[in-house]
């Protein structure tokens, strides 16, 4: 049988229709799509794809199961190493990881590994299997601080080995960025809740509304557990520090997305939290969060939605798929454009943003060409609101409140390669260490730290 060169497309909701709803955009493979795509996998002797995965999913094995129509076997294989497959199948940047090194991709298109993973996870959820029960307890207790991707992964891995795990979450709902950041149309919240329920079935206890570092302190928490994992994330929004940034109508992406995703503001006044962005919105930045924000803005009433980005299309950090989806949804892209100040009316509300055109100069420390302003190119863009999606920095709350916990130069928690911090018995991972990155890298860090915690507590290491 000849090799199928092109990957099997995934059905999506039509671009114009979907801006009128929060339903999922990518609809997932149907049975026939899965078979067609799974057989594209060559079952390489050396599966490079697996080296490209931060949590080491046995990709070759799970696709083999799918080739044999054994979805149950496939999800079983995935779940050995990945606690959140329905999430990863949707939000991982596969094109930079497993699919990037897929041999099929050298000559044709890579196997759609992420879509297959998603199918297997969705199939399992649809079956509503009696889920894995908690293993026999091993008598040891681990506290996980932060209920985001890093913390949930560490919790799942440790609970699977019989540790009594308690997750402490500051907000009223666990999930971290999966709950407050990534919009419904990219990651339905029912899936996040379902994945969290799986962890609870494994015996993980989740305590919401607890800010570790305030009450209790980290030292107090440590006293009650054999080990602690810190996955407190990179929650602090970065602003530009330009005039007018505190006008009403200038939001951080975190605020805008939290209002909508966590608090449900799109349904105001049926829910109590409002959000007001008007009909003309500019989002500053061009990463995945910027795409989430601008596409969300389109869904809550923005007729005109712009991305304002100081570099060019080539330097964008958003996934190609998110960029495509944003364009299909009518988002306008203003590349090589940078805000210089925000202009308000006499009541302190934003009315316009003054921008400047940029040109690309010499490469900077990131290897990308540095944008330089073009003199005299200023212009006004009339807007009702601006959403700043320039990234986030690690939450300093714990570092401030804990003696002896060392920080990196960039404000993250300092760790060694296993995730061990400067304090004995305390590990850390995810954005709290690295600064803002991806869900899957945070999960990888949570997994690695969980393994190190297990090695130490099970006495393999002393």
């Amino acid at each position, binding site marked *: 049988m000849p090799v199928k060169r092109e990957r099997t497309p995934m059905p999506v909701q039509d671009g114009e229709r979907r801006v009128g709803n929060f339903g999922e955009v990518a609809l997932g493979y149907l049975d026939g799509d899965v078979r067609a795509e799974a057989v594209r996998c060559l079952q390489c002797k050396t599966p490079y794809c697996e080296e490209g995965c931060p949590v080491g999913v046995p990709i070759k094995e799970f696709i083999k199961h799918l080739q044999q129509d054994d979805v149950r076997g496939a999800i079983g294989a995935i779940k050995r190493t990945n606690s959140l497959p329905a999430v990863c199948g949707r939000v991982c940047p596969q094109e930079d990881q497993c699919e990037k090194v897929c041999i099929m991709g050298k000559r044709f298109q890579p196997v759609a590994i992420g879509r297959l993973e998603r199918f297997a996870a969705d199939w399992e959820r649809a079956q509503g299997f009696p889920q894995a029960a908690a293993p026999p307890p091993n008598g040891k207790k681990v506290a996980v601080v932060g209920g985001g991707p890093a913390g949930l992964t560490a919790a799942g891995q440790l609970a699977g080995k019989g540790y009594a795990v308690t997750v402490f979450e*500051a*907000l*009223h709902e666990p999930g971290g960025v999966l709950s*407050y950041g990534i919009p419904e149309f990219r990651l339905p919240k029912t899936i996040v809740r379902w994945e969290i329920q799986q962890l609870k079935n494994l015996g993980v206890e989740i305590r*919401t*509304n*607890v*800010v570790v570092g*305030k*009450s*209790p*302190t980290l030292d107090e928490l440590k006293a009650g557990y054999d080990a602690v994992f810190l996955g407190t994330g990179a*929650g*602090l*929004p970065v*602003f530009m*520090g330009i005039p007018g*940034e*505190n006008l*009403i109508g200038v*939001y*951080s992406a*975190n*605020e805008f997305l*939290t*209002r909508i995703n966590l*608090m*449900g503001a799109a*349904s*105001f*006044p*049926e*829910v*109590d*939290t*409002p959000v*007001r962005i008007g009909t003309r919105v500019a989002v500053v930045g061009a990463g995945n969060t910027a795409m989430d924000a601008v596409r969300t803005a389109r869904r809550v009433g923005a007729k005109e939605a712009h991305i304002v980005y100081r570099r060019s299309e080539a330097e964008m950090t958003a996934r190609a798929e998110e960029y495509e989806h944003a364009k299909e949804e009518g988002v306008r892209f203003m590349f090589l454009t940078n805000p210089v100040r925000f202009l308000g009316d006499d*009541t*302190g509300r934003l009315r316009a943003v003054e921008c400047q055109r940029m040109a690309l100069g010499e490469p900077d420390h990131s290897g990308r060409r540095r944008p330089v302003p073009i003199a005299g190119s200023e212009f006004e863009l009339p807007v009702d609101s601006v959403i700043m999606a320039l990234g986030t920095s690690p*939450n*300093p*709350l714990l570092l401030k409140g804990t003696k002896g916990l060392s920080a990196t130069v960039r404000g993250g928690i300092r760790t060694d390669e296993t995730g061990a911090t400067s304090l004995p018995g305390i590990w850390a991972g995810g954005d709290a260490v690295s600064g803002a990155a991806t869900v899957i890298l945070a999960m990888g860090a949570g997994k690695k730290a969980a393994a190190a915690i297990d090695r130490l507590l099970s006495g393999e290491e002393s």
Partner: protein
Amino acid sequence: MTKLFLVSAPVVAEKAEPGQFVMLRLRAQGERIPLTIADFDREAGTVTILVQEIGLTSRLLGALEEGDEILDLVGPLGLPAELPTAGHVVCVGGGFGVAPILPKAKLLHRRGVAVTSIIGARTADLVIFDRELEAVSNRLLVATNDGSRGRRGIVTDCLRDLLEAGEQIDEVVAIGPMVMMRAVAEATRPYGIKTLVSMNPIMVDGTGMCGACRMTVGGEVKFACVDGPIFDGHQVDFEEAIRRSQAYRAEEELATKHEEAKQCR
């Protein structure tokens, strides 16, 4: 109307200090709002929270009865107030600020600081916490709008009297509506007397994540939730803070009307 609730919240009470706040949510579709911790009792595991019934959530909270439960409550958040350990401090509580000024006066009094407390109300019958404050103050001054008790006028008038009389004041702590705190800060500015104010902006998460509560203090952007909520009143850009606190006024009214309509049905 302003109401006080005694809430059983041992985790919060254990670490609470004067100046800090909690975030709470009352129902599944509810919003998160910040509320000042007016007082706390570590032994009893309780905190006293202060509710000014302005928006929908504060009204829903105000309608709760003894024994009712609060869905979500987290804290203590924000930094504790850094209060002086000697000298003469004037504690000014305006409107809803009378309750949270009390634990500060208590703490100062315990430290041996000379305390003058100034509180105000519309009329004599509405003066609250006067006895409690009197017990921990060297002097209590009261202002009423109608002059039925103490000085006719507002709390700032009492403070101005002291300043104009040339009284030695080392520090002023003011809690209340932003316009009142601004007036206090303006009164003390010419005298160069350090003035602490407790800001109460709009917040969403209350832990530094969203930046809704950002304000300009001394020319720098600060987040009230993690850098405050107590700031040097002479450094705060009150005009901006007042405007930002009203950003969702129209929606607040709409939400309240919507709720009333729902309850009539």
